[in-house]
């Protein structure tokens, strides 16, 4: 493409306030002037998944956080590069002992229902998150050693913790801790969670019509005037409305993008990237997702994997490099640690190259563990029982999982990909520990995601996701130290110990660094990927065709 395209966004950024102002004044139907670029008023985005629950205080789904970001603002904003800045809170103060955060709120914020943001509203949100009846699957876990919240002024709240909890500021920036209008929280979980039509926040977009299985519409919030400084725009959003269509089938979603039915699309798979990139009407934004990379969490309490030798055999039997290179066509890097390198100030690069594939070692370990027999299909057996590793999967098994399955077969290990489209069934399997391994990635712009996975108290009952069922005093100590330390280097050092332990104990097999590819039409401008590698629509606008 000509170089002019690269220069275009910067130029448009400068002239845009003029353009939108002009359009606004002409909006009553007099038509646009010939010299001014016209803007389409709606952007349509295709997403690969539909939330099971729309309440970010409840859902643990990344897609819920992404799709409710336009509706809910948070106290703090995390910029795409990971730094934190004021949003609904104009400033904050941490007590000398690190146990208490005092937030001063903006006084001009109005929720979509017309009510005002004040200290009581923030308290109502924290009370909703921590209410056992809410059954929070993630947000409550983000609060860590939470003790309580106090209203200390009309626009001031104090949030207290049992012990110093440094990761809280970043946690406060997530959609999971987004601030909803208090009245909407009282509307009940049906409206908030399942139907999603009860979402009332203070964000740049209001929740609009929702057709389950098809699409959700968002409408511009014309009163919006409290965007964070680095949002790339100020005032009401440039789009009049935003439409999100749920297209789970990869080929269909890409087809919708290439045919112009949608303007932007998430999760372009690696094998379709060239198709999108070669299209002169399309471009791709990509970003390595911060947080936990795509990882197999080995259930250290399952009958099979309580034997560390078997876990290590599983870890070293997989030729991760070759599979990742082949499945993702050389586009995604393999992972060596459970944390992604893009996670701010916590990744441990010294793990790289320390646990290469070693099928011979895997064979030796399995022999030692007594898995010496072989069945007709070549799988190892012990007392006549096949070496079966059960992996519950929600939806369809990915090409990557199947490639790992094929590779493990060479070492005589049967990876059973137990796929189900029943979210409740998969959820109860996980809650009850009826699995050997769970494969997933988890976006978060903070290394404290490790606490979520490895802290002994992060059971599913405590809104945690300790899939590896780790209960280790040393691990708890490192994670506590990391949460307590004010010095970033000290935090990183403790997170590094946790990352190394997880590899050494074969509690995890990190595989590849999840990369978000968002395809978009060249008519779309000022689209960017936020900290969790999802598109931010606030500043975006679309040229009329």
């Amino acid at each position, binding site marked *: 493409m000509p170089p002019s395209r690269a220069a275009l966004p910067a130029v448009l950024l400068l002239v845009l306030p003029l353009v939108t102002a002009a359009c606004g004044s002409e909006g009553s139907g007099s038509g646009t002037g010939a010299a001014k670029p016209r803007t389409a008023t709606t952007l349509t985005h295709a997403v690969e998944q539909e939330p099971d629950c729309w309440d970010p205080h409840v859902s643990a789904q990344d897609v819920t956080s992404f799709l409710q970001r336009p509706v809910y603002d948070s106290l703090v904003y995390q910029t795409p590069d990971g730094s934190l800045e004021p949003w609904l809170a104009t400033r904050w103060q941490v007590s000398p002992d690190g146990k208490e955060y005092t937030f001063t709120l903006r006084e001009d914020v109005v929720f979509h229902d017309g009510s005002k943001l004040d200290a009581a509203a923030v308290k109502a949100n924290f009370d909703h998150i921590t209410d056992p009846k809410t059954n929070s699957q993630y947000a409550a876990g983000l609060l860590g050693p939470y003790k309580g919240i106090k209203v200390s002024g009309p626009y001031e709240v104090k949030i207290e913790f049992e012990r110093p909890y440094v990761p809280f500021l970043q946690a406060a920036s997530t959609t999971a801790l987004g601030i909803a209008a208090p009245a909407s929280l009282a509307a009940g979980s049906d409206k908030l969670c399942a139907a999603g039509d009860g979402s009332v926040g203070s964000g740049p977009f209001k929740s609009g019509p929702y057709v389950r299985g098809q699409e959700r519409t968002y409408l511009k919030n014309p009163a919006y005037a409290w965007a964070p400084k680095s949002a790339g725009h100020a005032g009401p959003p440039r789009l009049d409305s935003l439409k999100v269509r749920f297209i789970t089938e990869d080929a269909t979603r890409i087809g919708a993008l290439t045919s112009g039915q949608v303007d932007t699309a998430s999760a372009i798979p690696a094998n379709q990237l060239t198709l999108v990139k070669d299209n002169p009407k399309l471009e791709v934004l990509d970003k390595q997702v911060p947080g936990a990379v795509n990882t197999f969490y080995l259930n250290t309490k399952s009958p099979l994997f309580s034997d560390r030798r078997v876990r290590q055999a599983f870890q070293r039997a997989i030729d991760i490099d070759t599979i990742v290179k082949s*499945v993702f066509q050389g586009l995604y890097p393999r992972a060596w640690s459970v944390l992604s390198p893009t996670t701010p100030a916590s990744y441990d690069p010294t793990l790289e190259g320390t646990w290469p594939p070693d099928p011979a070692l895997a064979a030796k370990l399995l022999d030692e563990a007594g898995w010496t027999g072989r069945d007709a299909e070549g799988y190892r057996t012990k007392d006549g029982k096949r070496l079966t590793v059960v992996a519950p999967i929600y939806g369809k*098994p990915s090409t990557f999982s*199947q*490639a790992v399955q094929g590779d493990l077969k060479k070492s005589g290990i049967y990876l059973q990909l137990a*796929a189900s489209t029943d979210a409740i069934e998969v959820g109860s399997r996980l809650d009850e520990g009826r699995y050997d391994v769970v494969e997933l990635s988890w976006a978060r712009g903070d290394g404290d995601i490790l606490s979520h996975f490895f802290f002994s108290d992060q059971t599913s009952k405590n809104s945690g996701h300790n899939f590896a069922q780790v209960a280790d005093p040393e691990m708890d100590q490192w994670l506590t130290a990391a949460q307590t330390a004010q010095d970033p280097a000290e935090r990183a050092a403790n997170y590094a110990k946790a990352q190394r332990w997880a590899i050494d104990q074969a509690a995890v097999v990190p595989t590849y660094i999840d990369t978000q590819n968002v395809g978009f039409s060249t008519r779309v401008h000022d689209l960017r990927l936020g900290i969790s590698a999802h598109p931010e629509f606030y500043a975006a606008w679309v040229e009329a065709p």
Partner: protein
Amino acid sequence: MTTEQVDPASRQRPRFSRPLPGPAVLLSAALLALLLVAAVHPALLAAGSPTDTDPLQALQAPDAAHLFGTDQLGRDVFTRVVHGARYSLSIGAAATAAGLVIALVWGLVAALSGRFGDAVLMRAADALLALPALLLALLVVLITGKGVSGATIAVAVGIAPGFARVVRAQAMVVRRSGYVESAIGLGVRRPLIVLRHVLPNTVGPLLVLGTITLGASISTGAALSYLGLGAQPPTPEWGAMLTEGQGFLHQAWWIALFPGLMLVCTVVAVTVVGRHAQARSEGRYAS
């Protein structure tokens, strides 16, 4: 259900009075024989394993080493297609057989149970017939659960109501026939009449119908697998292979094309042979 449409003029055409089956039938029969070999002893046609992956060989175009190319996991598509015959044919055959058994009981009971029982059973069949077989199968899969056996049962239930009507109609005819009336007159007990006379004389037309339906059952089974409700990965079932291949269509057309082609050829071949068998059984071919 399919209704038999016979061009009255066709009986006069010499082609139809030929004692030997035409080339289409022979070709179809040959293909079915080959498929049968593939289903029973796939190693005779393709030596490797259909599930062995080789990431370094992924997405290779068809060549001498890989006749049908390789898929996204480096598995040989030809080997998978050959081994897939077993799953696709057995889902179709088992489902048709099971459907026939269900229909036989259903239809016989309806025909022999008096006006009220007949009305209830046949209205039930009508209600189910209002749904296309695939839709009915989809509903049943919700209950049976997905997988090869779940899909087989689903397809069987999907085709049973149509069969049941045929069984009932045939049983009604047989019931009023002279030999059954005579048997009743002679004082033969009812169960014996059903077993000795009604059943054997009902089964004949049903077998022909089953042969014709087999093709449709194979494609319904494949459709369920295509939708992710039948055979699960890495099972080399043709419908499941189609699903896997569709994400790679622009990059590696061979992954989806060959299983799809096999599916079409198989269904056509089964139908051609089935029609031939039907025509023979109806005495339209002099032999």
